């Protein structure tokens, strides 16, 4: 049975292996240059004795390529689910080949398990190798950027889990929907939904975060906050700021900072009502719509007033930083990998049950 499973999977396997090889060769060549450049940068800044600004600048080199390769690692599991998972059984249902293969001398349980094993392992292998290639390529940039959680889903182990899960999801959807193209669409939709949910809803709750209390810094505290899709999603799942006062995010190397809140001694959040009462004249300024996107140029007098306001608020309030330290990165990686692989195994078991009991029971069209 393993030979049939391989024969049916041969063409996509060879095409994918070819594409992976191209990426690997390119990354090996380009990655060597990148590593050399990083070594040179470090050597140069060591002589000056200050590397912080030099590494920060280096982290932004090749940003387009970095983004592209990162996106590739994000997208490949979805492609695996859509093109390897969804058609695995759905295409056989559609083409009417199940009566042919299910009446050979191989039980349908073994038929399904073999196909799941062969293509499932290939899914994990493909995503794992791609992740390895990209992780190695980006190592100088990641070291310089010191924000390892930012690329959490594109490095190391978790892409394997995503791909194996996406594959099992695709097979399951194909068994349920029974038609290839709708199954592909549903697989993509559900996979994206699950990834968003785990990234913003589940992952932050896996481990109890650490906290850091800081005094409010009148110079670095701003008003209002930046808006991006990822920030909006995060605040939808985990709650957004409660006041317009936006304290500076401290620099903690490689940490994952959940939030920087302004709280009093009892841990209550600062609200806009309190902020208004404390410094009414500043809030009048802050409420005015900005004249241009980005930083709003403010008059020196307004800036002075704002600093005075932050100092006033700082008497009873302080900044509370909630974060995961860098040391937990691997615990997160292994846990998320286990969650996704576990979910994939459950889906595979559901498919097995369905293929043995139900698939023939519905409508009779096999």
């Amino acid at each position, binding site marked *: 049975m393993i030979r049939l499973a391989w*024969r049916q999977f041969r063409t996509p396997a060879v095409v994918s292996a070819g594409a992976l090889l191209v990426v690997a060769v390119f990354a090996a060549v380009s990655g060597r240059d990148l590593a050399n450049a990083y070594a040179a940068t470090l050597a140069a800044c060591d002589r000056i004795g200050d590397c912080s600004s030099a590494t920060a600048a280096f982290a932004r080199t090749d940003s387009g390529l970095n983004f592209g390769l990162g996106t590739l690692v994000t997208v490949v599991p979805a492609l695996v689910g859509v093109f390897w998972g969804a058609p695995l059984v759905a295409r056989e249902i559609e083409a009417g080949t199940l*009566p042919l293969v299910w009446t050979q001398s191989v039980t349908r349980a073994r038929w399904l398990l073999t196909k799941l094993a062969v293509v499932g392992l290939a899914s994990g292998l493909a995503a794992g190798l791609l992740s390895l290639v990209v992780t190695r390529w980006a190592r100088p940039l990641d070291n310089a950027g010191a924000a390892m959680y930012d690329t959490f889903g594109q490095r190391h182990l978790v892409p394997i889990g995503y791909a194996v899960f996406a594959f099992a999801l695709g097979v399951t959807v194909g068994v349920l929907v029974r038609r290839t193209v709708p199954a592909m669409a549903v697989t993509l939709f559900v996979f994206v939904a699950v990834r968003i949910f785990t990234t913003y809803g589940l992952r932050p709750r896996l481990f109890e975060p650490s906290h850091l209390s800081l005094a409010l810094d009148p110079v670095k505290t701003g008003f209002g906050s930046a808006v991006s899709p990822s920030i909006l999603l995060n605040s939808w799942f985990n709650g957004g700021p409660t006041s317009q006062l936006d304290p500076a995010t401290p620099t903690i190397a490689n940490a994952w900072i959940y939030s920087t809140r302004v709280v009093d001694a009892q841990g209550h959040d600062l609200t806009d009502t309190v902020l208004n009462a404390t410094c009414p004249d500043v809030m009048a300024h802050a409420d005015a719509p900005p004249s241009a996107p980005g930083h709003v140029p403010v008059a020196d007098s307004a800036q002075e007033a704002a600093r005075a306001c932050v100092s006033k608020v700082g008497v009873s309030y302080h900044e509370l930083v909630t974060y995961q330290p860098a040391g937990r990165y691997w615990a997160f990686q292994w846990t998320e990998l286990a969650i996704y692989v576990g979910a994939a195994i459950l889906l595979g078991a559901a498919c097995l049950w369905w293929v043995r009991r139900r698939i023939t029971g519905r409508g009779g069209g096999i």
Partner: protein
Amino acid sequence: MPPKDARAQVTVRAQAAAMGAWSLQKPCHRAVTAAPVEPCLMRPRTARKLRGLASLGSSRELDTHDTVLEAHGLGKRYGRRWALSDCTLSVPAGRIVGLVGPNGAGKTTLLRLAVGLLAPTTGTLSVLGGRPAANPHQLGRVGFVAQETPTYPNLSVTDHLRLGAWLNERWDNGLAERRIAELGLDPRQRAGRLSGGQRAQLALTLAVAKRPELLVLDEPVASLDPLARREFMRAIGDIATEHGVSVVLSSHLVTDLERVCDFMIVLVDSRVRLAGPVEELTPADGRSLEDLVLDHMTAQEAHR
């Protein structure tokens, strides 16, 4: 027709009741030639009575060696619709059995139950003395060619033979290659490029080369042109004689079956209306077998 004494008649009847509905018809076949249609029409009430008889009498000692398929009260339900209900029949071994009946009679459902693609909702079914598709061994004993004779369009003819060799313990590669050569098929040709007739022959080759004891074919010629139809039917006849394999073949056309089958079962509304060796069923008054079968189908319509 040799006359039989009354006691022999009774014995036949008791055995027949035990064996299932087709044998019940045995005393009828004689009647058919004399007065067609009516005496053979088994109404549900009669069937129940006779089954009752079977359970009373000596049913269990009957050997199932001479049957390839035994169904008792077999039913299959899809949601609220019964595709097959309360079907009781026996299919004799060593024959080419034609299963004929109108669309919706339950032929396909019955055959899919027989090869284990479906599981019955009610009743029991035994094929070659075992539960259909119970294990690889049982799967290997039954060859199946499904309606529309499916093959993998992207795989070549050779790939299909490899598939057969990979998935079947008793695969006879010599037989498969010989058949492909005789048919004049290009081994490198993709199955998707084959004509309907060639595809059907490829599907048949797969089913035959696994060396089954029973070959089940579900309307294999429904979509073929007359020439391909005739060749396919001839191939089935050759296979049955060459390898001594029992064959069950369904169609809604009597003329398809008449040519090759030596035993006929007429299924209408899940029930056996007529069963017996073709030479016994063929009316003596010069009418065709098809007329007889049609009579039984229309009699059923009128009965409803």
